[in-house]
């Protein structure tokens, strides 16, 4: 069996993995093979991806919401395909048709007060833009984030995140990027007291940390502190936005109007990379003072804007919002039933809409569950910064049947992972006895 993709081909999956190791990323390639998830995504359609072997997987990883609308969503695909007859990336120096159209669409559907849009080509770049914007507006340098935060890997964004990714590249700058514990308003106030902070950056639910939910009143308190100490509030909605919590932007469920809102991933419809920063009038000053202050050739590429317009339209439909509420209800209830069967193992469900983190009673519990889900036809990923927690992210256009199927598979996989963990514990105990 050979694998012919037109302009390139592989003779086997083994050859492909070998070349992946040789020419691309040996660390990543080996990691997944060793983790028991030797996935090489081939065909993709709707909420399914297919391994090269032909095995079908129901995708509830969705690359953090990139495939919110499913893989190769027909509407987004049609829009981008049609657009390619007229548009390309465009010229970022000039007023641009598609950039302007998407900007208007983003602003008119955004919380009040966000009035301008700056584009990037990925989430990290957008975070950098948000930080630069906040620094310009406040003429201050510090940016506060939470411990175990994750906002991307670009120059400034990486500083806001966990040391693991900044120290590797000698890019940690603790003096500019203080980290405070999540859900700790006192610590936040301490960090802001000096009034030398440009902005607090906050994922509405920290994804890579396993979706720990903000305690009631926490985000609202952070926003109040920002106002008190003259710092901007940057809402990172890359993973929580685009209707995943049942509202377009999760932060609005907290009644917060951020000074800056960052979106990416799902905005691309999974078809053409694009990210966007929505800024308030107060923060938007540099766009008038020096409009060329931040330049990005691919930022807001017009094809990406077309994808974004369609993705935003679909996300904003009342039908979609309603479906998210149904999916959230069905999957949430189903998971609680599974949880009731394994109370000592499946110890927590963190859920806001279809943003879900499943907690297991083992330091690496989510890795076990991930593997058993994989064996049972489901692809979900553990949380990099808290591997007890499985990220479980159903798409926002899932059908009832797909949700039921997902729950059946999850039930079995969670049970088998528990048996494996218990078995291993039992064996250890027998050995030590």
């Amino acid at each position, binding site marked *: 069996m050979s694998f012919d993709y037109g302009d390139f081909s592989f003779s086997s999956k083994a050859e492909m993995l070998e070349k992946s190791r040789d020419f691309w990323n040996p660390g990543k390639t080996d990691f997944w093979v060793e983790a028991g998830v030797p996935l090489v995504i081939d065909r993709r359609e709707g909420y399914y991806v297919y391994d090269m072997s032909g095995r079908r997987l129901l995708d509830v990883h969705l690359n953090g919401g990139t495939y919110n609308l499913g893989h190769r969503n*027909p509407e987004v695909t049609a829009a981008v395909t049609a657009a390619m007859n007229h548009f390309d990336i465009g010229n970022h120096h000039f007023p641009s048709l598609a950039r302007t159209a998407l900007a208007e669409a983003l602003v008119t559907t955004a919380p009040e007060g966000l009035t301008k849009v700056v584009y990037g080509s990925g989430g990290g770049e957008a975070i950098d833009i948000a930080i630069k914007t906040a620094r310009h507006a406040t003429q201050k340098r510090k940016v506060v984030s939470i411990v175990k935060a994750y906002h991307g890997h670009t120059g400034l964004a990486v500083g806001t995140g966990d040391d693991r990714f900044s120290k590797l590249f000698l890019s940690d700058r603790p003096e500019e990027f203080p980290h405070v514990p999540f859900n700790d308003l006192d610590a936040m106030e301490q960090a802001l007291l000096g009034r030398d902070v440009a902005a607090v950056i906050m994922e509405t639910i920290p994804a890579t940390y396993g979706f720990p939910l903000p305690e009631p009143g926490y985000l609202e308190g952070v926003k109040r502190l920002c106002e008190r100490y003259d710092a901007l509030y940057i809402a990172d909605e890359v993973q929580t936005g685009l209707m995943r919590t049942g509202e377009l932007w999760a932060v609005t469920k907290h009644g917060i109007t951020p000074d800056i809102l960052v979106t990416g991933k799902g905005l691309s419809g999974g078809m053409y990379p694009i990210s966007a920063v929505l800024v308030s009038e107060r923060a938007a000053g540099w766009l008038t003072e020096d409009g060329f202050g931040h330049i990005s050739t691919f930022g807001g590429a017009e094809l990406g804007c077309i994808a974004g317009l369609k993705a935003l339209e679909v996300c904003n439909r009342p*039908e979609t919002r309603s479906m998210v509420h149904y999916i959230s209800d069905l999957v949430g209830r189903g998971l609680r039933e599974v949880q009731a069967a394994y109370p000592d193992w499946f110890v927590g469900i963190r859920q806001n809409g279809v943003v879900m983190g499943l907690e297991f009673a083992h330091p690496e519990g989510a890795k076990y569950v991930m593997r058993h889900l994989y064996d049972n036809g489901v692809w979900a990923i553990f949380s990099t910064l808290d591997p007890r927690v499985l990220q479980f992210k159903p798409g926002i256009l899932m059908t009832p049947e797909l949700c039921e199927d997902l729950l059946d598979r999850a039930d079995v996989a969670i049970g088998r992972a528990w048996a494996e963990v218990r078995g291993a514990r039992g064996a250890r105990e027998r050995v030590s006895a």
Partner: protein
Amino acid sequence: MTGPGPEEAAGVPRARQMLERARWAARSFGRYDHDSVWRVVEAVADVAEAKAQEYAEWAVRETGFGVVEHKAVKNRLCSRGIVEAYRDEDLVSPRIDTSRKLVEVARPAGVVLALTPSTNPVSTVYVKVLFALMTRNAVVVSPHPLARQVCTDAARALASAAEAAGAPCGVVQVVDEPSIPLIDALMSDERTDVILATGGVPVVRAAYSSGNPAIGVGPGNVPVLVDATADLRRAAEKLVTSKAFDNSVLCTNESVLVVEDAVADRFLRELQRCGAHLLTPEERDRVREVLFPLARFDTALVGRSAVAIAERAGVRVPPRTRVLLAPFDLVVDEEPLAREKLCPVLGVVRVASAARGIRAATAVLRIGGAGHSAVIHSSDPATVMAYAAAVRVLRVVVNEGGSTGSAGFGTGLAPTMTIGTGFVGRSSLGENLQPRHLVDWTRVAYSEDPSEVFPSFEGLQPWDSVAGPMPPYPVASNLVTAAGAAPVPAAAYDDEGAPALRDEIRRLIIEELTSIVKG
């Protein structure tokens, strides 16, 4: 997912998504118990009834068809009237048949695609929505483009009422911008469980060709036989009232009067006394020419008044004229006046005897209207029986007007706006459409073996009593209270003009959250 293929016509992907949302709603609704369902039905009927007059005016304004006060009557019949008629028919709870050792569990169709006509726009929306709700189905209404605005508004009003009474969100939806490609897409979409097609022949045939289960009915062309035994005064009153009702837009309106010679002159005088105008042969020719230019019915005259049609034909009639009587000699297909006329023009044929009358009525139905309906005014049951056996229709209304009588208002027939024309009329439905046509039953059958004891199912209820919005608003899991009930803001899906509403919801959420934080 939003369905197959790129390059779909504008609006089609979103309409497909309506079907998907409807499936979610139907899935929830299919678990409601009888009382929860009827809370919804009553609330919807209340709103429908309250808006009967408003929508009657709007429908006439938008379509130009019909008569406001008659449409108002029809809207009331199709809201309050329908609910009263079907209140005692439980299509939700399990049925137990001890003697046959059977249990029947209701299984709703799921997603009903309701195509509604321009002639009876709001009343048909009312009936289809209420039938769907009575049977726990979700419904997507696709109105006729000529009556789009009023139907859209009506469907939205019913949807809001349903959801406010606890129905699942999206249980009633409406297509804003109906178009042929869009309707084709919805009809053939596998998420459509059954199509209720009311409209012209092409729509009905397309529904049956869609590959999905469909209930569509054929057109009418109603003969009315008046024999020598009839109570002429009463018959004349009933006939003129029926023919004038909503200017004959109901497909059950009388098309051709067949009257026995012996009483014909007297009967025509009675008709004239009731407001009918007998056309002279020359006037008749002018009316025929106006109604059937190039031998095809001019749809611009659907539902116009008798006076307006006379004026168009250059015929002077008294201003109070309700019906035009157009006599002709022979019922044959080259006579246009023998065909269906959705306007208050009644063909008149004289016959020597009741037996010849039955043959003339049969000829009317050879031209059109097979399987539909017929009317007879007679006091002789033998004639009624002979008539019923001869005419190829599935309902014969006796001594009552056809317009409302065949539709089940004022007779023992099932009240409806959709008249099944049966196999003879190329339809899957031979009865008046009624709620029970939208539900299947799972039949639980025990062995007949006497040693197999049929247990008691009394009191076993598989369905839930529902309170609160469905689905519940997705509140963060750490805000769910110990009692298990999350604080729930009223969700707004109804949508287009909703920024204000959405702001209101946000405000409610904030209030809820704040109170929790404080508490």
